[in-house]
């Protein structure tokens, strides 16, 4: 870790209006994530973990406050600008993998590259490299239904990595997997963090999973109750 800041949340509030009620999820929240960090976010259901990832990933906007990424504001971008920003800077990994069931593993991994100017040959080369990285080079032409949960999640990791983003956001990436498979995936995330310098924010319920991270944040009622800012 370089100590340089990748993400900074300053006085971020997030409220949802539901009918007459306004639910406050975050009230003047602050957070700094340095480049190369691997943060586990834990907390009870409904504490706002997913909402936090949405804000970090630019798929939701704060009601108040500022979010900077690599020194630039992202909370002021338009929807179209955000889409492009996400394509370049963020890789998403979901609990249920979210692969396209009608596309092969290789075509799934290729998706983010279709938003770049790479030609067909270059795309294929990169897809092969990403699939080898997650140990699925032989499965390129397989469809999601022909793969185990762990394999599908590895395809999803390859998809998240393919456009070489600085930040990986994982929402319960092992929530649907057995212990052994979960450990494989977590080891892979740890490798990506240590060897490739990817900054990772991972939401999890599993204390074992959190051990793979450099630090753990506990979220409760919209606040971090325990902060370990030492990397």
């Amino acid at each position, binding site marked *: 870790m370089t100590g340089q800041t990748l993400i900074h949340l300053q006085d971020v509030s997030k409220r949802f209006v539901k009918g007459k009620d306004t639910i406050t999820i975050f009230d003047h929240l602050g957070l700094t994530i340095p480049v190369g960090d691997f943060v586990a976010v834990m907390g009870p259901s409904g504490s706002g973990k997913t909402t936090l990832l949405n804000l970090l990933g630019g*798929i939701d906007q704060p009601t108040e406050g500022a979010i900077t990424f690599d020194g630039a504001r992202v909370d002021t971008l338009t929807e179209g600008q955000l889409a492009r920003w996400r*394509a370049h800077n963020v890789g998403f990994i979901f609990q249920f993998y979210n692969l396209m069931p009608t*596309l092969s593993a290789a075509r799934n991994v290729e998706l983010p590259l279709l938003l770049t100017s790479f030609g067909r040959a270059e795309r294929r080369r990169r897809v092969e490299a990403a699939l080898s990285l997650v140990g699925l080079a032989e499965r390129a032409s397989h469809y999601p239904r022909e793969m185990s949960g762990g394999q599908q999640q590895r395809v999803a990791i390859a998809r998240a990595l393919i456009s070489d983003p600085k930040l990986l956001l994982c929402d319960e990436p092992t929530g649907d997997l057995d212990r052994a498979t979960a450990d494989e995936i977590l080891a892979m995330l740890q490798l990506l963090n240590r060897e490739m310098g990817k900054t990772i924010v991972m939401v999890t319920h599993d204390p074992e999973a959190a051990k793979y991270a450099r630090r753990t944040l506990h979220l409760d009622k919209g606040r971090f109750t325990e902060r370990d800012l030492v990397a």
Partner: protein
Amino acid sequence: MRVFNEIAVVTVICIKSIPQRFWASLSTVVAVGLVVTVLLAFLAMAAGFQQTLRGTGAKDMAILMRAGAQAELNSGVSRDQARLIEEAPGVLKGPDGKPLVSPELYVIVDAVKKSALPDDGNMKKAPKSNVTLRGLGPAGIAVRPGLKIVEGRRFTPGTNELMVGRALQKDFVGMNLGDTVKLGNASWVVVGVFELDGSVFESELWADTPVVQDLFHRQNVFQSIRARLTSPDALLALKDYAANDPQLKLDVTTEADYYAQQASRTSDLIQKLGWPLAIAMAFGALAGALNTMYSSVAARAQEIATLRCIGFSGTSSFLGTLAESLVLSLAGGILGALVTWAAFDGLTASTLSGTTFSQIVFTFRLTPAVALQGVILALIVGFVGGFFPAWRAARIPIVEAYGTP
């Protein structure tokens, strides 16, 4: 190029997901297919009808009827008028030097369609249809050089003998060579079957003028005069001649124009029945298409949100969903065209012609232009049925990507 890749892959994802909603998708295809089949059946009928009537008229054959009569049925001309036309300019003369002018009688008689015959074969109980009995003399045959006697022979003048058009013979009961036919109060014998270039005349019965006049009490009266012209341009001379003679208050047109006008009136009518019915049904198919596409969008909500997460635009989801709907409706359109083609193309039917009040036998024709209209209607249903669901697809919140499957 980038935008194209993006839209192409979302379209592929949408179209490949069709089998996941197989039955809903199939029902949309079938509903659209049904609409197109109904429309095309009407349009093929109109096209076939038009083709038969259009094929009837010759440009160098004048037809003369009482002024304002519009159709042979309403017309009356006298023997004297016919004689005056024999002396008119522009009228072609036959090899024997006689002008090719044929005064003709036009009588509506009853006959039974094969399709209307009851199961027990009892002719008396069967509903009757109107058919045309044309009375003509030797000149009537001389003015129609395309006439082919395909069975038997011509009628002998002065006898109760009939010639039957090929189409009528196929479509009606008891019109074969040697059959006895009761028309009015007299019995007639079929002695010949003729073809005449697939024209409406093939839906007629022909007999000798004096016999028809006698049996139907129409002495010295005809309905029309056919006159073969030296050339199509000679019509003008004939018209001038008729206009300058107060005894000749007749409308003069070419047979081609006369039948073309009749064709467009009746086929307009068929189309005016077909389109509203098809459009009413199209609304039903549209409801089905909307339903299918909304459920498709709902089923793919997480996929769409995931793509948006990755950075795909709402536009690509919109176009992909629209493409899915268009593919389904196009399949329906093609299905409808194929069904129409298999079930109706070449099918012979007869219908009451609006202006002649007698049956005209014609063949359904599914021409490419007609089929195209069906496919276009299908695509309109697909476009509207896909548009609103596609709009919804484009607005699915990205946060749905986290939703449980």
